């Protein structure tokens, strides 16, 4: 008869239990590190924003660089925004016309297009395009400057790179993107008039009057305010990602890509918040 030995039976069980406990501990440590890294990133972003504020209101503002960035962001994005704005209005008109015609409400078409362009479509679509063009441009430009030590070179030659590179870009985006959005709205209405004339015959004067009969100041104001925030967010995200890019060339692509992805996502989230706030008022 075999002798019963609990120790022999328990050893494999204890070994398995230890393995499981170790695995759980490793996973817990990895999760803790992930959470800790995420919190550090959030703190970094806040410190970055605080530094932008501090440098904006400190002495020796880089006006020349600010105007150059306004030119780059505004003028050089104009063709893209013009085409997008006009097509936005045209498509919206062509798509909405049959439905409105079914209800005998084609006369409401200019007003409907104008309100939807000014309140929602103009700001969001233009901001998303700007996040793609301007945000990625900033991320890639500052990222490559970081990788090739140009930002370090600026720092050692007693130039504050935050003041010279980041502040003018963020402010230029904050100023120019709302202007681009208003411009896109205007071209959208023009495109809408062109769309209305495909199957109808309406003068621009009449179309314009009908469009703005339904547009109030309360439609404009929230849209302009949220456009300013969209601009600031696109500028901050683009600059943050580029300025804090890693050391390898791969980091430039990562910075540009994440500037677009995070910038676009934040635009959508901020739009949702803005809509909720506007709805409550």
């Amino acid at each position, binding site marked *: 008869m075999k002798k019963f030995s609990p120790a022999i039976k328990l050893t494999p069980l204890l070994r398995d239990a230890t393995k499981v406990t170790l695995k759980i501990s490793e996973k817990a440590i990895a999760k803790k590190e992930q959470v800790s890294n995420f919190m550090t990133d959030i703190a970094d972003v806040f410190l970055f924003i605080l530094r932008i504020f501090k440098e904006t209101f400190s002495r020796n503002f880089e006006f020349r660089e600010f105007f150059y960035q306004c030119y780059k962001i505004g003028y050089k994005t104009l063709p893209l925004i013009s085409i997008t704005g006009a097509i936005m209005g045209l498509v919206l008109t062509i798509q909405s016309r049959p439905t409105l015609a079914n209800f005998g409400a084609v006369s409401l078409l200019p007003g409907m297009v104008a309100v939807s362009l000014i309140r929602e479509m103009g700001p969001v679509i233009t901001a998303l395009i700007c996040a793609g063009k301007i945000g990625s441009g900033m991320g890639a430009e500052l990222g*490559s*400057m970081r990788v*090739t*030590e*140009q930002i*370090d*070179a*600026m*720092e*050692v*030659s*007693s*130039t504050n790179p935050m003041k010279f590179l980041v502040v003018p870009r963020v402010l230029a985006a904050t100023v120019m993107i709302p202007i681009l959005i208003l411009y896109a709205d205007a071209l959208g209405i023009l495109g809408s008039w062109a769309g209305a004339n495909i199957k109808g015959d309406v003068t621009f004067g009449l179309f314009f009057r009908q469009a703005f009969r339904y547009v109030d100041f309360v439609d404009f104001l929230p849209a302009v305010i949220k456009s300013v925030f969209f601009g600031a967010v696109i500028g901050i995200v683009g600059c943050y990602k580029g300025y804090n890019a890693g050391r390898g060339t791969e980091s430039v692509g990562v910075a540009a890509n994440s500037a677009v992805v995070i910038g676009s996502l934040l635009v959508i989230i901020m739009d949702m918040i803005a809509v909720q706030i506007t709805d409550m008022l």
Partner: protein
Amino acid sequence: MTNRKSVIEIENLSKSFGNQMVLKNISLKLLNGENLAVLGKSGTGKSVLIKCIVGLLKSDGGTINVFEKNVTSISRQELGEIRMKIGFLFQSGALYDSMTVKQNLEFPLRRIKRDLSEIEIKEKINEVLEQVGLAEALDKMPSQLSGGMRKRISLARTIIVDPMIMLYDEPTTGLDPATSDEISTLINDIQKRYKTSSIIITHDIRCAQKTADRVIMLNDGTVYQEGKIEDFEKSADPLIKSFFI
């Protein structure tokens, strides 16, 4: 030489990245008017050392006195004043891509020497371009320059503000032997003409032989050997000998 005043004094400097300790209690001095070459294999912390001196990297411990001011504990403004006296030649040249050679040279000059007139700025630019032998490159973009030309322009941008200390980060890396020799000659010319004190980070032994008054070898984050280049040449140490093969 030992009676000369030191312009940089480093005591027990340490720096790590994560768990990796790159510099382990390093102490060294740079004397006024000397060229000090810092030799060492890649990854021994040579570049980290000079980046700590100009405050681009924050050290974990120890002191770095530059002109008797500890750069590890001074304010941002004081650090800016110290940086005005230091010229830093980056390994990659770090020329501003979006600016012409002229704008690259104007950039530090207009920010550090604010009282200069337009004529004086123009004269200064011509002077440094002639010094590096590239007077014809004034309106070129950095992308139109060869590796050696980029290094020279970068050197011109560094000396344009009359620095008292020069920090060279691998000045001859990636250059052919002839161009490397030209850069080494330029380093000596700059020392003579502008009376600078320099730290030359390199693993190019020809550059060290040509430029160094004194040599320090770093290995594994510590000072492995210190002395004149002749002492290094005669050394039987396998690590030191490997640099002279």
